[in-house]
């Protein structure tokens, strides 16, 4: 079970309190009705599904109930950072925790 830091509660809480809400930074068009078929396809159906760093939405369902964004490594399952909904996609990530610890 993962520990996830809620950026609103400013606390690490067990995964049981959270629910994943899919990929982040997919903006809904202000002119939804006027979107082309291609644009709507990209908006609604196409997801990146990367091996490695993913930007995704989570909800602190059984806590403050807020939606927020997270950067996670899909290979190691490690959370690299979390940030509030509406904040821009981080241009620089903190030290990649994907690095293995050499002992």
């Amino acid at each position, binding site marked *: *079970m993962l520990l996830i830091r809620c950026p609103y509660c400013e606390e690490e809480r067990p995964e049981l309190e959270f629910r994943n809400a899919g990929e982040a930074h997919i903006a*809904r068009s202000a002119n939804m009705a006027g979107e082309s*078929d291609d644009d709507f396809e990209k*908006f609604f159906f196409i997801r990146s599904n990367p091996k490695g760093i993913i930007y995704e939405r989570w*909800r602190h369902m059984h806590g403050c109930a807020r*939606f927020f964004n997270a950067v996670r490594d899909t290979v190691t*399952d*490690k959370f690299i950072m979390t940030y509030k*909904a509406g904040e821009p996609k981080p241009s620089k990530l903190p030290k990649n925790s994907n690095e293995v*610890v050499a002992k």
Partner: protein
Amino acid sequence: MSSAFRIPSAGRLSQVRTARFSFDGQSYTGIEGDTLASALLANGVHLVGRSFKYHRPRGVLSAGAEEPNALVQIVRDDARKTPNVRATVQELYDGLAANSQNRWPSLSFDVGAVNDLASPLFSAGFYYKTFMWPKAAWKSLYEPKIREAAGLGVSPDKPDPDHYSSRYAHCDVLVLGGGAAGIAAALAAAETGVRVILADEQAEFGGSLRFESGAKIDGQGGFAWAQAAIAKLSAMDNVRVLSRTTAFGYYAQNFVGLVERVSDHLKAPGHDLPRERLWQVRAKCVVLASGAIERHMVFANNDRPGIMLAGAARTFLNHYGVAVGRNVGVYTANDSAYAAAIDLKKAGVNVAAIVDLRDNPTGPVIDEARALGIEINFGRAVIRAGGKLRVSSMTVQPKNGGGERTIPVDAILMSAGWTPSVHLFSQSRGKVAFNDETKRFVPGTYAQDCVSVGACNGTDGLSATVDEAYAAGAKAARDAGGKTAKGTKPKVDGSENWSRGMLGAAPGAGPDTTVKAFVDFQNDVTAKDIRQAVHEGMRSIEHVKRFTTNGMATDQGKTSNMHGLAIAAETLGKPIPEVGLTTFRAPYTPVTFGAIVSHARGPLFDPTRKTAIHPWAEAQGAVFEDVGQWKRAWYFPKAGEDMHAAVDRECVAVRTNAGLFDASTLGKIEVVGPDAAKFMELLYTNPWEKLEPGRCRYGIMLREDGFIYDDGVVGRLAPDRFHVTTTTGGAPRVMNHMEDYLQTEFPHLNVWLTSITEQWAVIAVQGPKSRDIIAPLVEGIDMSDEALPHMSVREGKICGVPTRLFRMSFTGERGFEVNVPADYGQAVWEALWAEGQKHGATAYGTEAMHVLRAEKGYIIVGQDTDGTVTPNDAGLDWAVGKKKADFVGIRGLTRPDLVAKGRKQLVGLKTKDPKVVLEEGAQIVEDPKQAIPMKMIGHVTSSYWSQNCGRSIALALVAGGRDRMGDTLYVPMPNGVIEVEVTGMVFFDETGGRLNG
């Protein structure tokens, strides 16, 4: 009474505390502190089971959790018959009853042993090759027969009467393994004041100190030192010491699952104790001190009872005071078996000979063995063992060939070397590295905050182990914020030192003979099987493993994996690291379902939600159905009524007089704020801005793809306040959907969402007499049709408590839904019920509710829709605001597939024979005479007998359905084809006049 093979001067058990037990009905005496294995061996019993495939007689191989052979069924009572218990782990208690497994009619005479003679037929991959044809026979004939013949214990056939518990824990340093290394690490960490948990799978701490007679620490024997250290640790407030606790899984972020066996070793556990306790521990740092497991030698008939690991024989002697034979042979490729021979010899057991595969090894243990007068043979191999139910001899030959010599023995102690237990390290996603010099895999690259110490790290010798472990424990504590340690490192005064050994098959295993030299005892895999797998084209060790099943038994190859790998590598002509190691997976040893499930079973499996009116319905004898977590009154049978009679009566009563229905489970969300109407405009297809306060509207919610997500009646209480209802099952996801849009897409809207499902009890009063029933109890609301028309809502009081009174109908009759605070739900229901009795009202349940709404063609989202139905498909296009600029789903609705012709549309179906009721889910075709597979054009979504219509009614999704009105279609069923006519969806009161009737 002393048992024949118990040596009073050896071991640590108190001889006076005896325990009676039985094995296969025969009574024996053991000593408290024994395992079942040591107690059986003390009585000279080596034959304890039959093997999985060949039914070969098997004895005790090990003295611990790695045991592949000695699996027994422990029978406490009728319900407690635990199969596949390792006799080497099960502690003895007075009255213990155990049975052997996989034998018939008896352990010593087993008919299934004919498989052994027929074994050329049963070699690797034989299931895949032999039972191919006919295909149908696999399920009906081959698989049941194979499962009957091969197998382990028998599952209990009654519910588990025991209870299990579960705990979460956090600590700074979690030490897994309580041998010398684990104890040293725990001491170092604990002395700094950080929180430490130390766990070991054995009943007593000490690990290999249980048998290492040469170990001396801090001036005492190793085992005595361990007990003193544990006593010291147990007394510290910052330390939790867990014995009989196996760390079975190492998960992400240093999360470790452990199972503590709390009461399996007790004679009468009582009801206060759980059987097992699951610990879920999050640690800042994990110290892995899981030790090493000894490997057997691979030679012909190496599975005969009486042949066991040298370290195990030494444990039985030095800890349990049991001699595993009177005249033992030793077969080894490393030094450690010498120590076993020396200890046995000193205890008075004759050691017939030591056979050492190595050419000219030297060392203190070899000198000591020679000084004790033990015959030592270098450069020789045991090429086979004699005997059947018990080993009777070993045949020795120079390893490069030559004259054979047969030596009578009653036990053989073997050791091919020790395999570091990297299971947990590997589970933590760490990568192992192969040490070519010592021929073993050791921890290489770490993926989590953990550190391996001692034998599991490939560290040899007690002194080096304690140094390494103590330093690692101190560092882990310091990293976790511990103070500088005040303690002193344990001083090792005496140590045994052995490493190396051999991997793979010894000369007695072949290469190309038909002998059975076992690699994996539990799955009956021989050296020949692994060679054969390679010859048949398996190249990857993962394929070899699956083809031969090597390492796939419940012991997960603890003793066999390295031998199997080495034989495969040799056959392939590749170095071991290139062939690779199979993946280690949790659990380390089998875990009971009970421990995982814990209290979450029976009524605690899932929460049960009950409405405020539930007790009344229960008292009336209602039959309940599960709707999600809710218990809902399904129907209210009177004496002598079956379900159909009750539902028919309820349906007629509602349309004749009136009915009361508990609608409390309906999801309810209050949408409040200056932008509430704007928010509603975006979340629902309908227009809301112009809906006047006091009026209601049927709303449809879509997903972005244009498909119906939920529906419900929404009342506007004030310009800035909506009372939204959702489907019973949809309430949580609708709330999540609304919150998602409010928080992330429309955060500029000033709106609050509150779930009010459980705050309001809802009593639906429906039928021609409904107003007469409600009116006398209501204050402050004009109940006339002019003041309170259909689809309106008022706030006032009923029976003196606040109410939100909706005039709405899910039956097509004049109807009301009375919302009152849940605490008053039952009282108001009872008052309405009393009024209702004056007007011939009945209580009706969910089944009648379903029939009544279907008579009117009202859909149920999730029953008549399935996530691929648009408002237009459902005949609800009128509810989509055509002038709206945006709402969730607006773009999805114009997708090419959603506006295409021929989509499935909801229609009514009438069977040509009105008495026939269709089956929900039944498929519909145009031509019943077409060839199979037929073209299916739709399916039945709702179907009931309607007493009010005097016939059956159904709703269905049919391709191009609305263009087929009046057409005849067909529903093929196993008992014949049913003819149906396509109709509109309204079966009763088509003009809707009864809403005001």
